[in-house]
């Protein structure tokens, strides 16, 4: 996984509630672990609705985003848990339909 401190210029932090968004070698990443509710939810949903987002996002958080799943599915995305070494919560978000 590639990490960086600067947001991808296409996804300025201010538009995504201060979330860190960067392009890794695999796909787009979003880290919302420093945000308070409801910002992790809002930032992630705004990202998946962004026209330049593609079909896959790796989501990083320090807790399980319980309120995110229903809305993700409604927008045609699903989430798969990924292994994490530091106890953080990582999801592979995949677009399955164009909703």
């Amino acid at each position, binding site marked *: 996984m590639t990490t960086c401190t600067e947001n991808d210029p296409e996804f300025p932090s201010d538009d995504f*509630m201060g979330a860190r968004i960067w392009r890794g070698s695999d796909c787009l990443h979003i880290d919302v672990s420093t945000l*308070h*509710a*409801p*910002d992790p*939810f*809002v930032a992630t*949903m*705004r990202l998946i*609705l962004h026209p330049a987002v593609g079909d896959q996002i790796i989501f990083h958080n320090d*807790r*399980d*985003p*319980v*309120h995110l*799943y*229903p*809305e993700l*599915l*409604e927008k045609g995305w*699903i*989430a*798969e*848990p990924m292994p994490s070494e530091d106890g953080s*919560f990582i999801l592979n978000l*995949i677009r*399955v339909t164009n909703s």
Partner: protein
Amino acid sequence: MIGGPSFLSGAESRLLPMSIPFRFFAAAGVFHILFWLSLALSAADIAGFQGGSGPALATIHLLTLGVMVMTVIGASVQLLPVATRRPVLAIWPLKVLFLLMLCGVPILVSGMALHHSLLMKAGSTIVTIAIIGYLIYIGENLLRSKGYQAISKYTGVALLCLFGLSVIGYLLIVNYSSGFFADHATFAEIHFILALFGFMGLLAFGFSFILIPMFALSASPTDRFTILLLVLSLIAISCGIAGALYNSPELTMIALIIGTGAALYYAGSMIKLMKGGMRKRLGISFVLIRFSWAMLPVGLILGAVFASGLTGNSPDWTLFGFIILVGWLLSLLLGIMQRIVPFLSSMHSSTNGKRPALLSFLTPERPLQIHAGCHLTAFAITGAGIALGMEILIKVGALIGVVGAVAFLIFIRGVVQRLNEHLIKD
């Protein structure tokens, strides 16, 4: 497998069992019908209500305790732990709490309706125990919360108000037979202020800072805004209480003017947030939510006019109470519930490796459309009936409200039914 067994596996462990919030929602749905029915049956009492026990007081408490407190408990025990990042410690207290509310509220309102002192005392004792239990339960979660967000501040102050209003409410009931309060009406007024503006109002503000950005996909309000609004609200509530204690219409008017300022500041900020949101089509729930935002300042301005003495010596405070209770709080509560009931159901729809049910599948639209139409019509006709002192209008409006409340209960039942269909589907 994409969307297969692993989906939501971690989330399920952080959620309360679905039956916990839904038992409160279902009970609130039934009390909602009973509220409008009671309003229709007590129309004569409502038209000239001046306080004291009787069918009008019972009707008000069917709404405040039966609908509002029930819903607040059901929603807050599920939503607050997510906001505070601290799971609840145990489930069983919520089951006990529910049973206490389910028994206590009907006993209390029956006692109020029948002027029966023993029933009122028994009911208020049970309800007070339930509310204190809720305070301890939620307070414990707040104290363990990470950080000190806006919702924690608002909920903390709202819970203090709930404690105050519960104690005063209990003493008011005892006072019907003991008579130790020299001025029953003054403490009834303080109870009213703490209940509507202190407890429900501050909770409504605090939860909207989480829920409105979630629904509209917008930025959260700034800390500066939330703190200023809290300060304004507390000044208004304090002035209102002082106005009641010192029997000062001037202080009451100051409270209402500051409250109006706070309400307009809040509504303006919410509208601004929504304009910056990515989701523009927000559905029928936002018809009610927007309506509620308008009704708060309308009610407060009307209250300020009454307090100024411009309308003569007998201002219609019942109309003020109706606009605040039904126009603002009930409309807001029902609008929010329309969103969170399918939302919470969807989070419970992925057992046995199933992909969660779509929100759109879980939301029966027709009952919501009927409900919204009936709710707004009932509000307008009943409000006109109260303003004009026309019993027949109150009755007609309230009966339309009954139809709307039945439609809302059908909506809740429909969500559960669709969830079950989803769960048994191969």
